[in-house]
């Protein structure tokens, strides 16, 4: 090891003037860059994006083959591939983020971050903002790409629907990634975080739905409500642009607001958890 000329004799760097702490926006930008670098979400989100795009393109190919050519059919051909892309991307990317945040907590990077940025609330707030921005940007890219494929492949009748699907799907993806981040922070380990997400989002709602037929009516109603407000159901509502023509934007908005509520709640708990956490 060699101490170079940029340091004073003996390897001691020259004193710098005291610089102010980085503002929250600057922290958010730094966190965004970390997500996009080696060790962040870059590789995993690329894999997820390719998978989700493949699902969308495959759905488009099948639907176009089966299409009867009328207006209703054209809307389905234009919207369902984008819906399938955005919902599969949001779900898989949220699991990836939960895994990443859990690993980040367990292997100490969060500890290092807390040492250099002692304002823990600002730090976690910046990380939440970065994850949301990353989800939004990658969501726009992957659903937009499938949207372009759909439009170029003869789905031109549904351009507005495709655009709506890209916007709603990307927003839903951003909220799901925030949810995944919060679960990862709360669980404190990658495997636990992924299992918790799978249980909460898929296994419990599915099992509850199946079991409700065997339950008394009052209990079954409560179970149905629980399934209705589960994140995956809300995600499905938030990305289903194909129903907008028939039923309006009510379901779509309900889904997005529901996801926003879950994200806000879990984010607040995660911020609180990190604020008092000992390392």
């Amino acid at each position, binding site marked *: 090891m060699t101490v170079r000329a940029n340091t004073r004799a003996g390897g001691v760097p020259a004193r710098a003037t005291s610089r102010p702490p980085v503002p929250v926006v600057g922290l958010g930008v730094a966190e965004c860059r970390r997500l996009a670098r080696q060790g962040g979400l870059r590789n995993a989100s690329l894999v997820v994006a390719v998978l989700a795009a493949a699902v969308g393109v495959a759905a488009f190919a099948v639907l176009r083959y089966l299409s009867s050519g009328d207006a209703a059919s054209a809307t389905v051909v234009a919207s369902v591939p984008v819906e399938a892309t955005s919902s599969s991307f949001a779900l898989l990317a949220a699991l990836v983020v939960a895994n990443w945040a859990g690993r980040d907590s367990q292997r100490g990077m969060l500890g290092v971050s807390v040492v*250099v940025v002692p304002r823990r609330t600002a730090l976690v707030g910046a990380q939440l903002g970065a994850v949301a921005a990353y989800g939004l940007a990658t969501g726009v890219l992957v659903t937009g790409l499938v949207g372009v494929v759909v439009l170029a492949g003869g789905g031109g009748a549904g351009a507005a629907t495709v655009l709506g699907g890209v916007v709603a799907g990307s927003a839903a993806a951003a909220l799901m990634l925030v949810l995944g981040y919060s679960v990862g922070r709360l669980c404190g380990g990658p495997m636990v975080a992924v299992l918790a997400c799978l249980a909460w989002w898929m296994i419990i709602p599915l099992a509850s739905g199946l079991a409700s037929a065997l339950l008394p009516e009052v209990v079954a109603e409560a179970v149905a409500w629980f399934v209705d407000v589960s994140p995956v159901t809300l995600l499905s509502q938030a990305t289903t642009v194909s129903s907008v023509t028939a039923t309006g934007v009510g379901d779509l908005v309900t889904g997005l607001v529901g996801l926003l509520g879950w994200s806000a709640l879990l984010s607040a708990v995660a911020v609180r958890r990190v604020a008092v956490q000992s390392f």
Partner: protein
Amino acid sequence: MIEVTGLVKRFGSTTAVAGVSFTARDGAVTGFIGPNGAGKSTVLKAVSGLLAPDEGTATIDGHRLGATALPPDLRGVFLSAEWIPAHQTARSFLTYLCQVQGLPASRVDEVLRSVGLLADANRKIKGYSLGMRQRVGIGAAVMTQPRNLVLDEPINGLDPEGIRWIRDVIRGVADRGGAVLLSSHHMSELSMVADHVVMIDRGRIVHEGAVTDGRVQGSDAAGPRRVYVESPDLGLAARLLRAADLEVRSLDRGAIVTGAGPEDVGRVVFSGGGSLSHLAERALSIEDVYFRRSLEDEEAVR
């Protein structure tokens, strides 16, 4: 200045740190020693803002670490190479630290060059040796050119050149007027850089003293005083000292007298008609202090 006052930390029913108070002064390197499980890491984490004490305070230049925005160069911290994320490269890790602390991007290469890892900067850290991970961690700690340093076992795994480098870094921060709190089990290294030593055991401070030429001054708390004597008639001097209930043990051309200071040893020998050609208080090394305390603890247990 790093100031710890009345620090108490409990984990469930276990009290890890019980009312620890000490000061790491500006312009000095304070060695922080103690056996495993003594509470060193808990104190260092409290000083670094990684855990909140149940009672007491830990401040750096008067700042309590927590929600308040602080200048990034207030302190540099290295607690363990295990904290460095293995799945990142050294460059991406240091780049992130640069960005969240508002440092220019050029600082990354400067730090990598200074720790000798520029050529390995784009390799994942999980492929690094312990010494390389230590260098990344110490580089991260000093990248803001901090006024104060908190280091836990920084020389583990370092090669001799690396040890000399970290010694210079530590000495440099102190020479610039900053405080360095340095925990290490390498007593010989501590002897070379520490100006002051604080020993903790079972969550309490059991010894504090200045270090001069590798010797701990004011060692009363660590055991009885010891004096080295030489005499033209060592046998007579030894008999006189033993008659005064002092312990005498031969060493080289002289003897170590335990249980009295040089003034008393000289008085006993001269008043008995003996003579001395050499008389000097034998201060304890940091290692002596460490092992003496450990021995006393073992005897207390027996």
